[in-house]
């Protein structure tokens, strides 16, 4: 169990990590989700012991490891910009951590071949990294982290250069691998979709603060505040500021949206209403969907789906539609909001109504 207690990191005048508490269980998969510069790498470096926190303590299985150097702890880390030894073969690159820890030749060979198989590197074991494609080089670095069999494995956007299908497979395989060894697995990514596919727990990070930590799917469905909701949205979250008055969300006294059943209990007043792009559609999804008038800004086709950017009630929204919809800019259309999935946030940004069933993390 890795426990961060009231950790902060201040460098010069900049606060990289605001006070953070976090508990990661053994055998668990934990995703750090946030945009670049949100503090994912800083937090990982603290966990690894590469940097010393300005305040706070880090314990591992109850033992204080705050000042302990990374060399003296069982940590493996793969960076976004991975590093291989250029003069060694792929085999030797993968074997290097085991050679250092003095494993016997048979074990090394077995582990190297196992990791290479998983990373689909078997045909390239005798080459040097310079004679590989970009993705193959990154897989070599990943394989090295795997064979290290560390109790804390930190992966900083490790799949960014891997092809889509391999990522799909690794998302399946990696958690199994680490769960079996009982290690704690921390995975940083900027992509909400990747977090959802990985499952496990997710901590959403924004500007050096963890805004929420809990089971991935519940953080996604019930964000505790608007920052979390925005961090966990791709394509971007659609928002609009409205005033609840009885059974209507209004702006300037004009009804924009009806108040759906799950929000009927909240007090009248000003709210930020938010919803995901796939809850906006060109066709009525069901009986209670609300109708709005909008103007097309641009349509983008993405294979089986289209992203349609619209201007609606003065807000710029994105609609995610199945199928190919290449609508001319400036066309006036009618669109539908699936109000069952609306989220409401108060003036302080906290979610209102609908129970947030994941526990939140203090972020002062």
């Amino acid at each position, binding site marked *: 169990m890795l426990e961060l207690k009231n950790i902060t990191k201040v*460098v010069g005048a900049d606060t990289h990590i605001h006070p953070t508490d976090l508990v990661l269980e053994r055998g668990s998969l934990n995703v750090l989700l946030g945009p670049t510069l949100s503090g994912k790498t800083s937090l990982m470096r603290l966990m690894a012991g590469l940097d*010393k926190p300005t305040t706070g303590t880090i314990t591992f299985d109850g033992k204080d490891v705050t000042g302990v150097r990374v060399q003296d702890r069982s940590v493996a880390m793969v960076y976004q910009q991975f590093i291989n030894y250029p003069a060694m073969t792929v085999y030797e690159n993968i074997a290097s951590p085991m050679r250092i820890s003095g494993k016997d030749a048979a074990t090394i060979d077995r582990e190297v071949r196992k990791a290479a198989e998983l990373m689909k590197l078997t045909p390239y074991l005798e080459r040097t990294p310079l004679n590989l494609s970009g993705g193959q080089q990154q897989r070599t670095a990943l394989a090295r982290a795997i064979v290290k069999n560390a109790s804390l494995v930190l992966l900083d956007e490790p799949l960014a250069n891997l092809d889509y299908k391999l990522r799909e497979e690794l998302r399946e395989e990696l958690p199994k691998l680490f769960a079996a060894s009982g290690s704690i697995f921390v995975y940083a990514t900027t992509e909400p979709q990747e977090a959802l596919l990985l499952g496990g727990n997710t901590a959403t990070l924004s500007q050096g603060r963890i805004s929420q930590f809990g089971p991935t799917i519940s953080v996604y469905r019930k964000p505790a505040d608007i920052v979390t909701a925005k961090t966990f949205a791709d394509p971007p979250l659609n928002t609009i500021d409205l005033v609840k008055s009885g059974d209507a969300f209004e702006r300037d006294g004009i009804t924009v949206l009806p108040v759906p059943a799950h929000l009927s209990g909240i007090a009248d007043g000003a709210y930020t209403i938010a919803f995901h792009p796939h809850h906006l559609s060109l066709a009525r999804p069901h009986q209670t969907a609300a109708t709005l008038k909008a103007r097309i800004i641009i349509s983008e086709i993405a294979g089986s789906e289209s992203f349609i950017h619209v201007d609606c009630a003065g807000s710029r929204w994105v609609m995610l539609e199945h199928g190919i919809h290449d609508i001319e800019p400036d066309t006036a259309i009618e669109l539908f909001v699936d109000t069952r999935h609306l989220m409401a946030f108060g003036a302080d940004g906290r979610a209102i109504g609908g129970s947030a069933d994941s526990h939140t993390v203090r972020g002062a």
Partner: protein
Amino acid sequence: MEKTWNNKAWFMVLPVLVLVAFSAVIPLMTVVNYSVQDTFGNNEFFWAGTDWFIQVLQSDRFWDALTRNLIFSAIILTIEIPLGILIALNMPKTGFGVPVCLVLMSLPLLIPWNVVGTIWQVFGRVDIGLLGYTLAALGINYNYVNNVFDAWVTLIVMDIWHWTSLVVLLCYAGLVSIPDAYYQAAKIDGASRWAVFRYIQLPKMKRVLLIAFLLRFMDSFMIYTEPFVVTGGGPGNATTFLSIDLVKTAIGQFDLGPAAALSLIYFLIILLLSWIFYTVMTNSDAQS
């Protein structure tokens, strides 16, 4: 990326500090001791204050030798650094040529200093030396014993032959660490050969170049063995550098006081110049 601050690091360097104290500071103190006293043998010492320093600084002999040192180092640096870079740039980066080149380059560095002197002394002799004989046969009047110019050329060529390899190896280490992608990008960006050197290769070599520069400066400024073996400081005083002068004063004339003062001045000059080079070169790095 910031570094982890660790107080224990000081304990690690403690042994080095002790070693430096014994190997440098204590002998240095002895020298300081000599430099401010006078002795006529019999282990009797008289306080001389700064007399020796003033004497040394006022002597033409000192200024002449210092000028020779400065000129020699300047020539060595202006030739060896660019030549070293040039050779490093043209060395193969892959294939079987790499080990061959590296071994060839290391050869001069492996030869002991005094042997280098002897080799060249013999090499350059008109009667039995290959070089001297060939030059003489070509009708070139070459004689490092009598001719000042020839003596200097011999010393410079010797030093270049001996030490350029060091610059080459350091630069080469910097060059091979440049990923291929940089050269590819430069081609796409239409960069000239010069631009590739100026914006890709030079920045990557900067650190090692600084080290090469300082090493070569200090070393050439302290040149001793080569002129001692080959020219013995002559013809006349033409190749009497500070180091040679020092030994002449200390051992030849047994003037320990002035010799000690001279060696301290010598030491301070090297320290000062190295420090100036270092700050100037690292500053330009930080600013631009």
